[in-house]
């Protein structure tokens, strides 16, 4: 009876591992490329997972595709191009920089820059306002001093 919980845990742990199958590589460089690629390709069925994380059928097929292409000696770029030609730029978590994805890459910097410009404009405006106020105060003080002096002379 004692072994039952252990047995249950054992069965459950097998299911966790079953998500991503093991692929055997002879060349460690290819294995490295495989890891990089499956971490970068999006599983289009479960869109917020990479094909490395997903145990969807499509992810499994795409891992097989990547594996076979690497074993055939194709380069990482060739595999990326192959995937983009079929599934579009969305398949990459790190999309290539081109006309279509340009906005995606540039927009954050544009927003950052416009933020800096805004800060600069506001701070400059504040400064001139302060200056104006100071000048106004000085004027009033002078007028007061003058009126006091005028009074004293009488």
């Amino acid at each position, binding site marked *: 009876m004692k072994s039952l919980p252990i047995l249950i845990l054992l069965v459950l742990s097998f299911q966790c591992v079953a998500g991503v199958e093991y692929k055997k590589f002879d060349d460690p460089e290819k294995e490295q490329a495989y890891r990089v690629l499956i971490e970068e390709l999006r599983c*289009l*069925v479960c*869109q917020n997972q990479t094909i490395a994380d997903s145990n969807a*059928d*499509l992810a499994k*097929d*795409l891992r097989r*595709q990547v594996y076979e292409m690497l074993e055939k000696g194709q380069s990482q770029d060739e595999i990326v191009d192959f995937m*983009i*030609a*079929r*599934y*579009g*730029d*969305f398949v990459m978590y790190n999309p290539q920089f081109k006309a279509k994805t340009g906005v995606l890459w540039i927009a954050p910097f544009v927003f950052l820059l416009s933020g800096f410009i805004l800060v600069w404009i506001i701070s400059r405006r504040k400064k001139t306002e302060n200056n104006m106020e100071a000048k106004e105060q000085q004027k009033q003080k002078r007028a007061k001093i003058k009126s006091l002096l005028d009074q004293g002379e009488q």
Partner: protein
Amino acid sequence: MLKFITPLILFIAMVIFLAMGLSLNPRDIPSPLINKPAPEFSLPILATPEKVLSKADMAEKVWLLNVWASWCSSCRAEHPVFNELVKMNIVPIIGLNYKDEPWAAQKWLNQLGNPYQVSIMDREGRTGIDYGVYAVPETFVIDKKGLIRYKHTGVVKWNDVQQTLLPMIKQLNAEI
């Protein structure tokens, strides 16, 4: 005055962007294959596995490629639409039986009717990858030159047939 109008304009712009984001369907991923040659295939026919159908067999024709599987419940939902469409006799429909068991697929067709000129078997999903299939059912419209002209992801409703597919088929048939 400007002090009140600027935040208001910014707020409205934000609302418009967020509303656009909400109304977009994240499942609708634009296919890079539109207006590109349909990928080549040569796959065994479901009813007669000793024979194959390849893309060349469909040359000079406007045709539909419908990706389906017996395990796909949405396919069941759109099936009557294709049964209806095929009765109009204006376009051949080829079924791409995607990652399915032949016996299950055959049983499915026997039960629900067979609108397909033939169904070809892509048991390992390789042709599926070539066509960028990620959510069955998917339907492709392929023109006389063998170019993919349109892709519909998900269930085809009769409304889609009337508003999109039929006009498109008519237009493509008129092309030389």
